[in-house]
């Protein structure tokens, strides 16, 4: 179905839920990278 621009129902529930999950996963991934970095810094010193 073609989405009509300018209306809220252009969001589908599936896209919204997957979107929120992806958006919340992003900081979690950054946090894991930071943890690895912290571990590395402490190990090196």
């Amino acid at each position, binding site marked *: 179905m073609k*989405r009509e*621009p*300018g*209306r*809220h129902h*252009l*969001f*589908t529930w599936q*896209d*919204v839920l*997957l*979107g*929120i999950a*992806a*958006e*919340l996963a*992003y*900081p*979690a991934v*950054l*946090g894991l*990278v*930071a*943890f690895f*970095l*912290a*571990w590395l*810094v*402490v190990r090196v*010193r």
Partner: protein
Amino acid sequence: MRLVRRPHLEDFRVIGHYTGIIINGLGLAMLAPLLTALAFAEWAVAVDFVISLAVAFILGYGLLLVSRPRRHDLSWVQGMVVASFSWLVGMVVGALPYYLSFHYRSFLDAAFDVMSGFTTTGLVLIQDLDHVSNGINMWRHVLTYLGGQGMVVLALTFLLQDAAGAFKMYVGEAKDERLLPNVVHTARTIWYISLLYLAVGTLLQGLVGLSIGMQPVRAFLHGLWIFMAGWSTGGFAPMSQNVLYYHSALFEAVTVLFFVAGSYNFGLHYAVWVGKRDELVRNIEAVSFAITSTLLGAVVIAGLERSGTYANVATLLRKGYYLLISGHTTTGFQSIYGRQLALEWGDLALLGVITAMLFGGSAVSTAGGFKGLRIGLIFKALVQEVRRLLAPESAVVVEKFQYMREVVLEDGSVRNALLIVVLYLAMWGLGTAVGVISGFPVREALFESASVTGNVGLSDGVTSAAMPSLLKTTYIVMMWAGRMEFMSVLALLGFIWAGVRGK
């Protein structure tokens, strides 16, 4: 010859009309704390809100009554002046319930806290926060939640069906990207995204509250408030110890998810929600945030490791990285005491946080600071210049970036980005100078000024009810100008100047 046109009566009518609508919107928002106060039988607080609501409506409808413009179309100057002026009037009206609560030493302190909330900064001058009523706490968090979306966005969503030239007010509030062709639909979409997140965030934060032993009503009330403050990158909390109060790594971790999501561009949310999820890893702001937060994370971690502030990796990360991300997204949730920042954190770690606070979150979001878009644009412009130097003289060097769609880098956007960054830096310098004049050490004044400039709200102890009125007033102006990204504030000043010297 320079020609400055003196404003006409019609200019004042248009500005009065739209300011009236926005103040009415703020009055409507007072229903949330009023109902909260009634639900918890806080009768005196409810009366305070009835009085404040009446004042807001008298002022709002009074302005509508006396203004009555012939045309509702807005010029650029009018739109910009409405945006900046309504935030000032909103500050005064919003401070009424605070002042009536007797939790403030002066009206200036109450106004400071309103501006701090509206601009999603999060610095507080409130007294005895731990014993504040639920009604006042609801107002504090509603203010910051509204401020995150924007007062103009609120009015566009709920009070205006369609307004010719409303886009100019919307731009005045530092939002220059339309998600949809129609600005009213854009405003509604911003609210749709925020309200859906409000449901998800309150539920999750409330469940974590339950898991750490809070009573159900309290857990979900705190969950709602902490979500509102996190999503709007505001940093208020219902307890004076901020998120440190909860003593839970899980609680802190969940706040990170929501304040990072809150610092995303609403355009990015929109793109991801209509299925373009790869925008999360391609968007210039998301990439910029990932790079700067990782690099500055390394700086803070190395700094704390050098100063030996924390004993192990887990604590170092929980305290150090949390504060960095809280500063970078301009949230200002604090999991350590302010004086620890000033006295126990080394210079290197502090430098990392100061830089992050100035960089800030994304454009068209609830966040402050330079914004990732401008950092990305300036970096791209630098790359373009180097490529130009290396390329043959006749070659045309084109630089592109992903910002909801592929965009070609233009000199005009780079100039604009550099100008705004220079203004932020100048304001940071001014705030530091006033801090030092007020008697604070330069290191502490630099940190606090960066926090105010970026609308962050982390504090190393400078901000308190005891600080001089000059510094409070300076910080209020800085928070306001920083949140509006200067242009509409400059338009308001220009408008006043034109009134005095125009022809």
